[in-house]
């Protein structure tokens, strides 16, 4: 027998704040808020006392003062008379450079290694497994230091390139690997080179248009146009033609041994290369696992179904497997990019002047503005992280399976 009783109309008692689930959450939130405020107040009060005791304050005026130190890799104009702010901007650009290069290389390595880990070839499979395990299980800092050691202690000094029978020689007469960095040819943009570049840009648009057209034709009429070689032809033939018609306006400046060092060409420092390759190889190992997992996530039935429709293996990969695998692969890969960007702060270990090296390193030490510098540093990385994860959320939303 059940009886319904009216809910008791009792008035609010103080003990309900603890015992009654309706009010308990308010109690807890109130306590949490109070604790938080108390903690903040405590830390803030300490900060104020400490600063007052040391005669310091929180101010960002130091950013406009001359920095007084040199940065060896300058994407924008900078010298030791420039402000700390400009030094930080140089650092930010250097961070972005190494992050971009690293992400690009890591993707290539990761995709190759990930696909090869699923290869039917036993030896290749095991080799790639070895690569992935070796790099995933050893700290990236150690890899950075190992590659940096190769760059600085193993490669020959520029003087080894001197003379007829020098102990070292340049690769293809164009690349010099020395312990002061790598020298590569630099392009020289002569008059008329703009036309070549514009032609190339136009060919990219043309190639995209051609592929769209071919796809549309396929869907509308079922006629299959070849895709691969015409796109390549559209991409390169006009640009090469224009290049020669304009009288070869773009030439290369080769590095040359001048005095004690190489001159001309592009100088890539050992610290950049160490950081770039170490981050790329390390992150590549993680991306390889993501790629492998993504491909394995597409069930075998999909391949078989596509095959039973009569698709050729290449088309099965392109039209059936990859679109489904990419949905699984891309989100973790983007978070690996994020990790790579954050790990690029290890630049400080090899003296690459990224934002951690300038703002969080020399500027901090020179001005003693620890709080301001570390705060700005964190905000920079936070902005990048939030921006990337925002992009990722948008992407995830756009590819989410539209379930009905």
């Amino acid at each position, binding site marked *: 027998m059940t009886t319904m009783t009216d809910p008791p109309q009792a008035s609010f008692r103080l003990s309900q704040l*603890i*015992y009654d*689930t309706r009010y*308990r*959450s308010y109690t*807890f*939130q109130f*306590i*949490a*808020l109070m604790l*938080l405020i108390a903690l903040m107040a405590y*830390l803030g009060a*300490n*900060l104020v*006392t*400490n*600063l007052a*005791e040391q005669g310091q304050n929180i101010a960002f005026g130091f950013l406009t003062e001359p920095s007084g130190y040199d940065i060896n890799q300058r994407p924008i104009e900078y010298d030791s008379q420039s402000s700390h702010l400009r030094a930080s901007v140089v650092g930010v650009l250097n961070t972005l450079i190494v992050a971009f290069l690293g992400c690009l290389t890591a993707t290539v390595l990761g995709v190759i290694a990930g696909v090869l880990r699923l*290869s*039917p*070839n*036993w*030896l*290749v499979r095991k*080799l790639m497994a070895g690569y992935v*395990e*070796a790099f*995933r*299980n*050893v*700290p*990236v*800092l*150690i890899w950075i*230091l*190992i590659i940096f*050691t190769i760059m600085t*202690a193993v490669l020959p000094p520029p003087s080894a390139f001197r003379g007829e029978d020098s102990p070292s020689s340049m690769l293809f007469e164009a690349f010099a690997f020395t312990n002061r960095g790598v020298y590569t040819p630099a392009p020289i943009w002569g008059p008329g080179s703009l036309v070549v570049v514009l032609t190339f840009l136009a060919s990219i648009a043309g190639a995209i248009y051609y592929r769209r057209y071919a796809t549309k034709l396929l869907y509308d009429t079922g006629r299959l146009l070849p895709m691969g070689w015409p796109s390549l032809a559209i991409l390169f033939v006009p640009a090469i033609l224009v290049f020669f018609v304009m009288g070869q306006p773009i030439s290369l400046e080769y590095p040359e041994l001048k005095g004690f060092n190489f001159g001309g060409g592009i100088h890539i420092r050992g610290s950049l290369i160490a950081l770039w390759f170490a981050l790329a190889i390390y992150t590549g190992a993680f991306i390889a696992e993501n790629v492998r997992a993504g491909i394995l996530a597409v069930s075998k039935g999909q391949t078989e179904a596509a095959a039973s429709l009569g698709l050729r293996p290449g088309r099965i990969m392109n039209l059936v497997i990859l679109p489904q695998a990419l949905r699984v692969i891309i989100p973790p890969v983007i978070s690996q990019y994020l990790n790579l960007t*954050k*790990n690029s*702060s*290890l630049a*400080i*270990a090899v003296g690459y002047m990224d934002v*951690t090296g300038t703002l*969080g390193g020399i500027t*901090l030490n020179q001005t003693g503005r*620890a*709080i301001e510098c*570390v705060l700005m*540093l*964190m905000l920079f*990385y*936070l902005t990048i*992280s*939030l921006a990337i994860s925002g992009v990722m959320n948008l992407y995830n939303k756009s590819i989410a399976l539209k379930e009905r």
Partner: protein
Amino acid sequence: MSKDNLAYHRTHMLPEAPPPATETGIVKWLRENLFSSVANGLLTVATAYVVISIVIAAAPWFFNGIWDSPSLTACREMLDGRTGACFAVLTERWNQLLFGFKYPDELYWRPTLAFVLLFAAIAPVLFIKFLPKQLLIFTGLYPFIAYWLIWGGSIVVPIMALLGVLFGAFVYRRTLTVSAGVAVLAGIVGAMVFWWIAGLATGNMAGFMALEPVASRDMGGFMINLMLGVICVSLSLPFGILLALGRQSSMPIIKWICVIFIEFIRGVPLITLLFVANVVLAYFLPPGTTFDLILRVIIMITMFASAYIAEVIRGGLAALPRGQYEAADSLGLDYAQSMQFIILPQALKISIPGIVNVAVGLFKDTTLVSVISMFDIVGMIRGPILASAEWNGVYWELFGFAALLFFVTCYGISQYSQWLERQLQTEHR
């Protein structure tokens, strides 16, 4: 009908023939795995060539290695022009690599003993199905023993710390009938009160059963990496669980505190947090407090790891079907009970691979402390060892050794986690 009219048919069984040579044993395996097509065959040959030439190049370096020599120059003389490694640096600087350069020589047995006991303490957790549950008591005691062994000082300190924890647990048990949240708060407050009183009462017992104290700044080498790894991972697990639950909570204020904390920590590199520990944290503490760098680093790394672990566990919580939450509610369990008995056991099980990934990543990241001039193994190699007159220029042996140490540890952990996943699998296969 006579037999002659019948079409020919066999009247006896043929003996079983062996499969063709190309379809059995090693030949079949080679054909399928190495030479299934021309392209594959070429790939195999090319890969094998690369691997073999690397091995041939590295073999003399490894096997000619000198294991006993006082310095690099002496080692080069012994090699006499041959290619060979100077592993002597490892034997000569063995203690420095493991314990740092300031830990007192005669006390090496203490961290070593703590390291050995670590296995005894961790085994009951790792192999909980195979070892008696009573051994977990030792796991509970281990942090206090290890603290006493590594840092030294009077045994009263760890004992009082232990009693405080027990007292807190007692208070928690007694107040659990009110509500889990209240009980947790009461437990924490109880423990703190106990420690405060104990601190007053035992202030002058510093000499009681004291081991010679060792300051944190005298520690170094791989010991620091292990200590940071073990301490921070074990501390960050409970914090991570709390943060994950907080982020899933229906109370907006608590939820947003957790969200902001997690996203902030995950958005910045560990190095900036170490900078905070190194140069900023002191500003936020009462004037005159000096607690050592290692403790500040532990705090920051623990915060870092808890944010990541929280995200992993949140994934596990989200992966549970809603029915589990509803079933727990319909049984009349309150929030704490449903979490403890229904939700968390399943969510944690799903999260094991992720948690192990975070743990491995964190252990690798402990090398970053060398950037803020702590002498962990990387710091020791780059600082005192490579800068010394005897061993300036011996890179590969040292970095190789450090890489090997980390590889063995991390690979071991990930193998264990795969084994554990198989053990915990309860689905039908």
